[in-house]
């Protein structure tokens, strides 16, 4: 019973937290909680349906303290502190809800989730990385909350485009998660290195490839670019392919995917051809921290990530000077596409 109540509640929590994160409005005061439904919860999937339909507009029995567990799948010292602040604000506004935060390092988060799922002990709300969110949701451990979302007064404050994407994560088209953040893919450049080579920040993909080559000075351990390797590398490639193609249509008119069209393949070959030639050799296993360190230490002149790494560059460059954030290069058709990059989702597991 208790368990189910918490589950239902978690939805509203996710919503409320999202709102605070995106700074669209105050925290939701209807975040109270749900009346428990008569059916036995047992399986989470079943619970999902019953709650989805009934839980939306109910109030918690007053005075009862409810604990909601929340896992952050990509903890780091600054981010954790930020979450703690949001949680403190939320708890102050909702005294009968206690939030139990757990920070996981991004490399271990999936292991922790899979073990928790196998043992049937998942958190009430959890962040999922978009590269494996579909896997976890597809396993049927998440609860759809379309009705609750519709009934939530601040739902209009969430960008509809993001909600559209949220609905694509499971075949049934229901909402299992709330967007928390959108990444804006950024091409970071090292000003001093560009100046020395007499180059400007690349505006087109051709300029980008050209710059990568010209900025490389292998004998001195300097590279034009640093390429993301390791297990997270494919996700980034998709973003770049669509940016290069200058389209966000992933299917053509016949319903075939555009991802392996000739142009995309040619681009991919060219892009991956940078590896080893104009990037450090270690990039094959490099995650964010390695490529970011390559850029921060002046080994690589260019590096693609999102705006989230700004703080680390400020620390490394000793201020806000010396590096520039550029949008991704423009496609040959003149269009600028930022395929969206990674979203982090608060999902209700």
């Amino acid at each position, binding site marked *: 019973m208790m368990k189910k109540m918490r589950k239902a509640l978690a939805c509203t929590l996710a919503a409320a937290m999202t709102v605070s994160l995106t700074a669209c409005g105050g925290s939701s005061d209807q975040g109270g909680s749900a009346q428990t439904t008569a059916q036995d919860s047992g399986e989470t999937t079943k619970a999902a349906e019953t709650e989805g339909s009934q839980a939306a507009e109910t109030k918690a029995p007053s005075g009862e303290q409810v604990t909601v567990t929340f896992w952050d799948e990509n903890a780091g010292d600054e981010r954790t502190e930020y979450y703690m602040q949001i949680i403190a604000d939320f708890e102050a506004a909702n005294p009968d809800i206690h939030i139990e935060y757990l920070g996981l390092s991004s490399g271990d988060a*999936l292991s922790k989730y899979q073990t928790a799922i*196998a043992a049937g002990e998942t958190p009430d709300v959890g962040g999922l990385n978009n590269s494996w969110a579909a896997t976890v949701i597809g*396993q049927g451990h998440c609860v759809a909350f379309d009705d609750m979302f519709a009934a939530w007064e601040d739902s209009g404050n969430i960008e509809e485009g993001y909600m559209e994407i949220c609905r694509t994560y499971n075949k049934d088209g229901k909402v299992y998660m709330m967007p928390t953040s959108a990444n804006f893919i950024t091409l970071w450049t090292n000003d001093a290195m560009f100046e020395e080579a007499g180059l400007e920040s690349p505006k087109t993909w051709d300029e980008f490839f050209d710059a990568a080559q010209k900025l490389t000075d292998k*004998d001195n351990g300097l590279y034009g670019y640093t390429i993301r390797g390791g297990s997270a590398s494919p996700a980034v490639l998709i973003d770049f392919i669509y940016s290069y193609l200058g389209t966000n249509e992933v299917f053509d008119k016949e319903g075939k995917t555009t991802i392996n069209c000739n142009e995309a393949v040619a681009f991919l070959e060219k892009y991956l051809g940078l590896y080893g030639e104009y990037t450090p*050799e*270690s990039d*094959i*296993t*490099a995650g964010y921290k*390695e490529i970011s360190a390559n850029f921060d230490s002046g080994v690589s002149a260019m590096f693609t990530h999102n705006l989230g790494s700004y703080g680390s560059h400020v620390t490394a460059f000793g201020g806000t000077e010396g590096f520039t954030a550029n949008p991704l290069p423009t496609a040959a058709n003149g269009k600028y596409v930022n395929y969206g990059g990674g979203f982090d989702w608060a999902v209700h597991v």
Partner: protein
Amino acid sequence: MKTKTGVSRKDLMPYLFLLPAALFILAFLAYPLMTVFFYSVQSYDVTKLADKGFVGLENFKKLFADKIFYRSLSVSVKWVLTEVCSQLVLGMVLALLLDEKFKGRGIYRCVVFFPWAVSGVLTSMLWSLIYNENIGLLNSICKDLGLISKNMAWLGNMKTVFKATAVAEIWRGIPFFAITILAALQNIPSDLHEACVVDGATTMQEIFLVKIPMLKDTIILTTLLRAVWEFNNVDLIFTLTGGGPSYRTTTLTMYMTNMSVKNGNYGYGSTLAVMAFFILLIFAGVYLKLSGYGKGEA
């Protein structure tokens, strides 16, 4: 001596002493292990829960056709051999050095034995700071010595990753051998050494003809234990390389851990575990038999 009542109480005594141990083993080892055996013949994949259920020997069939299984097994063999041999040799040399008296031996011993107390996670943290391509010590030393001209990614390079990981584990493993062998060396009666001096034996002769034969049982037991521990070692590899790149450091245990913990395929992971368990059991039996453990002891 034995009264009627005393007999039964005395007979029960050993079992009472062992009762707590037995309870712990039953609850947290035997029972979970049975579950692993049970799941090894089940389909239990958290990404395909609809298929959950008994599948007979399907998982084992899959295992014998699984290329990565063979590959990880060969990495395991290579890993165990590298680790145990280098740790044994280096540990023995260290123990022989420490068996001599010299000034500051106490503090020296304390320092060189220290890695024994360091965890796998910590070892991997310490060494990743050394191997790091950009801020690592190894690169700057090698560059200053003129060995390399540009920074190497020791853990990212297919050619160096295994060696780099192995060195970190050797660092942690030397003290175990040094401690146990030193302990055994100090058990060798000192008149044997005097006899060697009288007979005019060289130091090398004394080590190889007198000391090492006396260490035989210690060496057999410690190498066996270490081999099993190294085979099962996940902490260090899990945190240092995660098994990569491209399965270069995926030992069988690492493969199994990734299979169940990361991929959520608990059924097949269990099958791999059962296999690993039997491989170890057979290895231990054969090893003890061939090495003639315990023989030659009066």
